[in-house]
């Protein structure tokens, strides 16, 4: 008989090994999936994980790595604070959209003014604020009426998508766009653009913000009383109450911070890589960031590494789609497997497997 037995203390070795094993298991299971799809599994895996970094066309992909990893890391850092506290913001995608809309709207409102020193910072503020306020809806509903923030924040993603479509077709539609949906392209409006800081590197202000967030959240979690309260509330809600932590206040803080960071990610994306508010603006960063947060073990440095790994699967996945004809859904399933294996293997951190040799009498 095989049994799981709780460890007296969590295993450090397993805590470190789990993400690596999860990646390996995903490669194996994903390879099988691709094999069933009639592709050469080794080739697909190589296309996803190897070529973007070290392959022939890596010079093109490397810049993309920061572009994709930036928003993932920025959003995941915010989410990880909530997840640590037991506050489940699943709607970062919606907050990302709302941040982008608010930030872009502020920028577009000033068009064609040239004062970048004023306009860009105001857009950043508006972006953060948009995400913050959108996250306050599940926050206030939870603290006032005890609704479930998982459901509310998730459903608000679809509301945000509707608003996005309305904005792209209505209020924010470019007057010079010949009736096509989509706002003016902010990249062509210097005062509002989030340009690459070093040409070809993919480095823009959003990536800088992501790295700053990694450092600040690490300091917050290890040194600051708020970080301690967050960890305490997640580890044991009753002990947190005993320690004087107000649960409602913590819910609002966590949702607010994660919403604001998701909003910022949206703003930097719309003013930079995406360029405009359009119907297809959001590509699922807000959801993928959930995987990133867990893959990084809710640890800031881990999240940074996980963000790069997920960015790689995005880029490599696109390459696999383009060159090998692997369906997009297979790539998404592949990303989902990563979370699945991670959570499954995570059991080993707190439990060990025991095999009873002796059979039942």
């Amino acid at each position, binding site marked *: 008989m095989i049994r799981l*037995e709780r460890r*007296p*203390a*969590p295993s450090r070795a397993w805590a470190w090994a789990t993400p690596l094993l999860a990646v390996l298991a995903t490669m194996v299971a994903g390879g099988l999936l691709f094999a069933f799809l009639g592709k050469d599994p080794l080739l697909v895996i190589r296309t996803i994980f190897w070529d973007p970094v070290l392959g022939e066309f890596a010079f093109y992909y490397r810049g993309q790595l920061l572009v994709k990893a930036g928003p993932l890391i920025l959003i995941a850092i915010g989410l990880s604070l909530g997840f640590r506290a037991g506050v489940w913001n699943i709607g970062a995608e919606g907050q990302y959209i709302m941040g982008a809309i608010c930030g872009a709207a502020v920028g577009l409102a000033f068009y064609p003014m040239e004062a970048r020193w004023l306009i860009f910072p105001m857009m950043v503020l508006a972006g953060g604020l948009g995400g913050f306020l959108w996250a306050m809806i599940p926050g206030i509903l939870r603290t006032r009426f005890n609704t479930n923030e998982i459901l509310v924040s998730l459903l608000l993603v679809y509301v945000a998508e509707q608003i996005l479509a309305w904005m792209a077709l209505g209020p924010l539609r470019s007057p010079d766009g010949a009736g096509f949906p989509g706002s003016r392209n902010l990249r062509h409006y210097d005062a509002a653009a989030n340009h690459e800081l070093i040409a070809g590197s993919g480095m823009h202000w959003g990536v800088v913000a992501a790295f700053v967030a990694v450092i600040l959240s690490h300091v917050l979690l290890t*040194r*600051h*009383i*708020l970080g*301690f309260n967050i*960890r*305490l509330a997640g*580890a*044991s809600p*009753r*002990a*947190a*109450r*005993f*320690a*004087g932590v*107000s649960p409602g206040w913590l819910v609002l803080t966590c949702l607010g911070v994660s919403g604001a960071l998701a909003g910022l990610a949206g703003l930097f994306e719309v003013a930079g890589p995406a360029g405009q508010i359009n119907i297809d603006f959001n590509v699922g960063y807000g959801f993928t960031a959930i995987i990133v947060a867990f893959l990084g073990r809710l640890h800031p440095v881990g999240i940074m590494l996980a963000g790069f790994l997920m960015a790689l699967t995005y880029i490599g996945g696109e390459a696999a789609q383009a060159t090998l004809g692997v369906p997009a859904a297979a790539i998404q399933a592949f990303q989902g497997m990563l979370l699945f294996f991670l959570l499954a293997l995570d059991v080993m951190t707190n439990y060990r497997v025991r095999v009873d040799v*002796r059979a*039942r*009498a």
Partner: protein
Amino acid sequence: MGRSVRRDPGSDGAARVSTPLLEVQGLRKAYPGVVANDDVSFSARRGEVHALLGENGAGKSTLVKTVYGLLRPDDGRMQLDGRVYAPASPHDARQAGVAMVFQHFSLFEALDVAENVALGMEVPPPMRELATRIRDVSETYGLPLDPSRLVGTLSAGERQRVEIIRCLLQDPQVLIMDEPTSVLTPQEVAILFETLKRLRAEGKLILYISHKLEEIRALCDWATILRHGKVTGSCDPRQKSARELAETMVGSELALPAARTQDPGEVALSIAGLTAASGAAFGTELKNISLEVRRGEILGIGGVAGNGQDELLAALSGESRSAPDSILLGDLPIGSFGPNERRALGVLAAPEERLGHATAPDMNLIENAALSGRHRMRMVSRGFVNWRKARAHAEHVIKQFDVRVPGAGSVARSLSGGNLQKFVIGREILQQPDVLVVNQPTWGLDAAAAAAIRQSLLDLASQGAAVIVISQDLDELMEISTRFSALNEGRLSEPRDAAGLTLEEIGLMLGGAHDLEIGQGSSGPERAVGPGETVP
């Protein structure tokens, strides 16, 4: 260690000549890192209440779980009635005539008594017949119980009766009882003992696990004493004093608490007319609670758990708020203050649940020291935690309170109950509180750890702090309280001087005086039944 009573089990002369019903030989059971039972041997005969006595972690539970077929031993063998007995499951054990009443009940509150009993049977008879049989058994053994009552409406003592009757319907030869009196009022204990004595007279063997030495001396015919998984002695507990038993159990001299201070100071904290709904789903509402506690005294609050203890602690710790002037610290109304504001003023608390309320299980002792000590021990400046101070506080507690742990970096859940409780109490005491409120400070602890904690509470009071001890353990409260009161269904009885109280008076306070007027109603759960008296 075990010097005075080490004898071969069963070789104690004329008192134990009849052939044993249950014989255990060389039983061994090891878990990773600990040997729970090591070469355990004892024998018990028919018509005996046989105590298994030992500290927490001595291996009593492992032993009876092995007898009941829940665990399989690594080595050793058992005989039941002269035949080899090796139950692979509780089902086998029941077939062989071994039944067990657990410390924690497994009953469905939404079902009635008969339905609950039927659920535990292999082949339940028709309901009507079952109800008759339940009534018969409950009358035969003096366990008043109505088979049609919903279990959700029963007291803890009545629920235990359901479990006992469930066992008795199988007509067992061996009945195992794990800490049966921990949830009972003194009157309910009296009823239980009467039942056990009748079972003994019928020739059944009762294996009785308890920490409570007086109880074992009153009830049991023979005791096997375990320590660190080994049998360290066996004796007739009626021939020994509680102190001798405790010494064998603990293996070292008990520290007897010093005398309490005699003249209390001014009122430190008072509650006037506090009424508070419970935050928990099945909690108890506090009804018009009033009390005063003075500097230098210990106010003991007795009562069976679930009668508002958790709610009273929460109201005092600040986890639940009330009207400002319902709680006064000196003259200062603090009812609306949160836990940290109260801590700043010197009102500290230690909740009952050590893991998950007093401490976060997966956090280490340094972090858990910061949990309650952050402000009073000045661990936080400008929002940043000074972990060196937190570590210093944790290490101070570990040293002063003899917390046995590899280091302050150990996570709370890796500590044994006694060590963690010493940490929890020490963490508050070393913050030098003016008022300390503790709930069930020694619950489930072995005698040595419990004595150490009681002593530290007495010391704190003698240094001029006001201490409120909420506890189910009456012996404990009698030992340390200056004044005594009891919680029953959210009402607090008028506190009285502990010196001179009789057991009857205490029982009445625990049961709530309002039960007296109900008088002879057959459903009164707390009604005392004298020896030999049969309940209609």
